[in-house]
């Protein structure tokens, strides 16, 4: 599923590999945030969940004017 209102375009979404490797203790020991299996998943600061970039929710906030 793709579209302009998916998580990847949301202000609450964080999926930069550097940030993820720092946020998830031990991730770099036996894996990496740069691998294919992670796809574009990231952390949602609104729901405190690790979600797919293609997910959606009612709290979507456009990334323009990112806080």
């Amino acid at each position, binding site marked *: *599923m793709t579209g302009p209102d998916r*998580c*990847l*375009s949301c202000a609450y*979404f*964080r*999926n*930069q*590999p*550097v*940030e993820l490797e720092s*946020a*998830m*203790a*031990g*991730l*770099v*020991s*036996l*894996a*990496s945030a*740069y*691998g*294919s*299996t*992670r*796809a*574009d*998943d*990231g*952390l*949602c600061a609104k*729901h*405190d*969940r*690790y*979600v*797919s*970039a*293609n*997910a*959606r*929710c*009612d*709290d979507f906030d456009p*990334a323009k004017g*990112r806080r």
Partner: protein
Amino acid sequence: MTAHSSGLSTRQSSGWRELWLKEDWWAIWLGLGIVVIAALLFAGGASIKWVAVTPPKWHGIAQLGAHFAANYQRYIVQFLLWLAIFAAAVAALGLRVRDFALSFLFLYVLSLAIFAVGQWDQANRYNLEPPLVALILGLAISNLIGTPRALEAGFRVEFYIKTGIVLLGATLPIQLIIWAGPIAILQASIVSIVTFVVIYWVGVRLGLDRRLAATLGAGGAVCGVSASIAIAGAVGARKEDAPIAITLVIVWAIVMIFALPFIAGALHLSASVGGAWIGTSEFADAAGFAAAQTYGAVAEHDKLAGTPEQAIWAFTLMKVIGRDVWIGIWAFVLALVATTRWERTGIAGRPGPGEIWRRFPKFVIGFAIASLIVTAVTRGYSLGEFNARVNPALVAPIKDLRTWAFIFCFFSIGLTTRFRSLAYAGRRPFLAFTSGVAVNVILGLVLSAVVFAAYWEGLAR
């Protein structure tokens, strides 16, 4: 755009962008680049062996010193080549090249020392196999001394192991992959499904959230930390769930690196059966290769059937072909179940089958292509010609570079594993995961050493 240059908090790296924004593809470019250059030089009557230098077997320090005095230029050139190709990838991925270069110098110098220790003719007698030495030295440095943050940029465990696996493809005949692949897939499917069900069932019975139970289950059943974070994202787990799974996978994976080779040795398993068992029962590729390489050396030292290379081959077929490639399907199915059957989270996943390709571990493609290339190049040579000409000029140098990549990886595992900084896992997740570990290890042994033993023994033929 990179994290450093853009300040953006999101990055899209799927689709075509994956070709330069994911380390799987960089492992393919680097690994296949080496294989193609090696094959072209071989076809022209030359070889990459000058630059694929490794410390030789040695008895006395003077002998080793003489080798380094005579070959130091080759090590300098090799270091610069590794640095150049890894730095190109690191720059494209968005990491700082200057930090990487300094870190990689540290990594290379100590990896050279680890490699040299492993080549001592008494090393096996004292269990100084390079994977174990690299792991213990790395763990000691990171947990007792610590490393400056700037020095960590070069400790890229996954990147090194994926590059090594692509190079490994060049040393594994494609016929072997075709012959053993179906058995590996069957054995892996049995173990993966049973392990996942055990962890998930015990986890849910202990009161764990279903998404955490699934994240733990995938870590134990499929491919360790990579599987845990893939499933955590696919099912929309809480942000603390993946770190819990990461902690448990790391702790058990490190225990297994030491335990499996020595139990396999005590049971007198052949190199290939031991490798298959490790491929069935280790969780992560990097940790599994450390265990399989160690077992190859143990089996050789104890004069058990098979060769060290067969332990690596069996492990690879079992782990990479049998387990890793299915992560996309696991993610797709579990995302569907999470969306349709589990409690709502307020986030709608609505997964599609595209998930299977998006999460496919692409480095496996490089592994298969490398095998095809070398199989094609070496077609038509008799066994005698292969041993006399093809192996020393083409296959052995690629294998030596693969060994280097694996040592970078094993040392990086130790250097990046700081037990104090791991997330607290808790008793219930520990019990659920450990139940799966117990079943996985026993079932993996029965399938490798009894049910499918004849197939794994057949690798030797």
